[in-house]
């Protein structure tokens, strides 16, 4: 098992190299003058050149690349041209917000999607099943940013039940950062008021993010449940008199979940890169907003850094899912 994990970690090296090469190529080969943008509207040509020199942007691309990779070995993701802050520090500050959002969304999606998928499979081909299939495709078709706007319009603007955006009311002093997840840090600090505020702020963006994974997980769970229910061992269990409830909840559910896990893993990685729009709608200070801001000013170091971090998290999420898969399905363990 340890060997398995180690091998997967070693396999990350080419991923990192490939990712940085691709992102570097995009950053340098495409048109646009990020330096002029960063230097500001009143900058002279000399100032722009000085800035380019300061950031080594006047050197050949491959020199820049090796400098970057050299820094990477020390955990240095470069410096933002615009803010001149180290990208690694910025990402460390924004990543927890994105992770908190994605994890909350996945928790909602899994907690509702799996039972719902199981239930619709068990009652398949009856009207609740048909209805849920339509609703599920509808949920997948719903643009997350439009859903976010609708939620905001309803619950924050008209009803005024929930805050418009952000992670905490600014007047609430955030708890000391332990995990970076405000919902957890507030609990650690024992500040129930701040915790409730953090939850309220998280609610709408998490729901907006969760809808399409929820629907996909539900559909996947339904399909794999149906597949499992057609398995011989389920027929055997029925033939040998196991009660229906026990067959479904114990024998079917576990095997169906193991097939659904793959989707959960893929979605987790996909959501990490897909928070951009929801973060924009809800002013959620995460990687998506950070990357958007950098992209618009063509500040490429943060963009490369974000792509790298998300890419690695994507790979890591799949590793975790593979390990979980082994836990649920003993047959593939250690392979």
């Amino acid at each position: 098992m340890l060997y398995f994990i180690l091998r997967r970690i070693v396999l990350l090296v080419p991923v990192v190299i490939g990712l940085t090469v691709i992102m570097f190529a995009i950053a340098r080969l495409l048109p646009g003058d990020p330096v002029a943008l960063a230097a500001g509207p009143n900058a002279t040509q000399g100032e722009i050149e000085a800035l380019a020199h300061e950031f080594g942007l006047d050197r050949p691309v491959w020199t820049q690349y090796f400098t970057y990779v050299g820094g990477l070995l020390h955990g240095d993701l470069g410096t933002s041209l615009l803010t001149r802050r180290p990208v690694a520090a910025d990402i460390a500050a924004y990543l927890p917000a994105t992770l908190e959002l994605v994890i909350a969304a996945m928790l909602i999606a899994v907690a509702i999607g799996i039972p719902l998928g199981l239930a619709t499979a068990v009652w398949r081909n009856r009207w609740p099943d048909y209805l849920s299939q339509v609703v599920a495709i509808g949920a997948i078709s719903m643009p997350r940013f439009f859903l976010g706007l609708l939620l905001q319009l309803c619950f924050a603007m008209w009803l005024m039940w929930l805050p418009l955006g952000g992670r905490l009311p600014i007047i609430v002093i955030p708890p000391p950062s332990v995990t970076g997840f405000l919902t957890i840090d507030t609990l650690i600090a024992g500040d129930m008021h701040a915790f409730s505020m953090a939850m309220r702020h998280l609610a709408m963006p998490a729901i907006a993010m969760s809808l399409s994974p929820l629907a996909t997980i539900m559909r996947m769970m339904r399909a794999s449940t149906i597949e499992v229910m057609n398995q011989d061992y389920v027929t055997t269990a029925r033939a040998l008199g196991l009660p229906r409830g026990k067959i479904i909840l114990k024998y079917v559910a576990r095997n169906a979940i193991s097939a659904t896990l793959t989707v959960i893993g893929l979605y987790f990685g996909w959501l990490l890169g897909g928070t951009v729009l929801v973060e924009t709608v809800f002013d959620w200070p995460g990687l998506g907003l950070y990357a958007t801001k950098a992209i618009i000013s063509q500040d490429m170091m943060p963009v490369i850094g974000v792509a790298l971090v998300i890419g690695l998290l994507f790979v890591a999420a799949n590793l975790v899912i593979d390990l979980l898969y082994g836990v649920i399905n003993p047959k593939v363990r250690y392979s």
Partner: protein
Amino acid sequence: MTTSTQFTISRRGLLAMAGAGLAATSFPNRLFAQSGSNILIIASGQDIPNFDPHTATGYSASFFMRNIYDPLVRVAGNPPEPVPALAESWTMSADGLTYTFKLNAGAKFHSGNPVTADDVVYSFGRALALAKGNSWMIRGIVTPEGVTAVDAGTVEFKLATPFAAFLQVLPWIFVVEKSAVEANLGADQGEGWLMTNTAGSGPFQVVRFEVGTLYHLARVADAWQPGGGNLDGVIWQIVRETATQRLMLQRGEAHIAVDLTSEDMDALKDAPGVVRVIEPEYRTFSIKMNTEKGPLADVNLRKAISYVTNYQSILDAAGYADLMTGPLPNGILGFNPDLEVYRTDLEKAKEYMAKTDKPEGGFTLKMVHVSGLEQQRRWALIMLDSLKQLNIDLEIQPLKWPDMVAACQSPETFPDLFPVYQTANYGDPDNIAFAAYHSSRNGGWQNAVYHNPEVDALIEAGRAEIDPAKRVEIYGEFQKKVVADAPDIFGLLERRKLGMRDSVKDYHFTPVASNAIEAWPLSL
């Protein structure tokens, strides 16, 4: 029973999380009640780029500096006048070349050290050496050698050239504590250090900040500044959507919103507890034309377009704004309200069109605008609509700002129509006249191509003259000449639109960078 109330709250939070219905709780009120101190919350769309008063630009940076640092002179009142800040008094020589400032003896930095003439000299030197940020305002006027410390409490400026607006630009050059910066000089004049640290003497200092989210300033315990309100602190909160800013204001989650649109202002009209500040400010919006290359090099076509433009639509789309009358902002020194300018008149447009070499139209002009700037997009569409009447097509291209700037470098790359906002950083006609119409600025975004020697001469005379009456005369002539050349479609002055809770006390509007709120006099 603290515990039980806390439990109720957390359960509410959970209910909210689950999307279950819950009664409309008095969410914002509780917040403020809980904080228990007077913290002013300002919602703004602009992040503070960095803390260095000599490199940072943008109104968010201006807000930051105005509250953390002190200049020699502040600007206050309407119309704006220079008022004492670090300098308690000043004198000017008759030729307008020498200024002497007496520093306030009580002024001290956050470190407790007094503000001395040395610090002032150092700060001006640093600003000029770095040549970033606001230094362009004094470039060519103040030289490093020209600033000297007469004694610890007196600074003398010998200007390189007479400059009528000198006192108007001084509020934008801030004073840093020399010893603090020199202790952290590094290889870059302390740029790296000042980017995230401060060495100021202002009434507030930074206590907490999250980049891209909020900046929390707290009142300096023994601030030297006289007067002042009851604020314990100010929070500059980054709220990108203006509609969100407005809703926060309505809900009491913010005290001041600084980026509101006309639509937001309309929506706030009858909002309880909200005060709207809608005031003219020296912020012009006009559309520059390529007077050098392409069809618009023909003054008749420029005039035809100036007449065909639907000014009413521009005004409608802008909401709270006034049409410009010529090149200078309404109400500024020398402004002539009776100037004959272009107004929508299809007959005249066709008349001038007939004098061009393509009287039937049938060609395409190109207009660029800053992508994401909603007002500019609207104006581009209005121009497209207007030009149809002359059978001229308009190609609209949104560009990022640096690409816009790059396009200004030569008449060949400059588009036919180029919208520009210009904010007067100081309340003097020279600011706009020099920046936007002097030929020395050609190649820059404020005046890429237009040049007229007669206009140049008038501008130069205007900035060197210190007698206001003579200046009015000069600028009157200047306005006529520019209008005759029609280098711009003179657009409008957008009024400053601020929203405020009625709990904000002692606010007085000044039409200079009024979105960079000075918090010191305010109370809650």
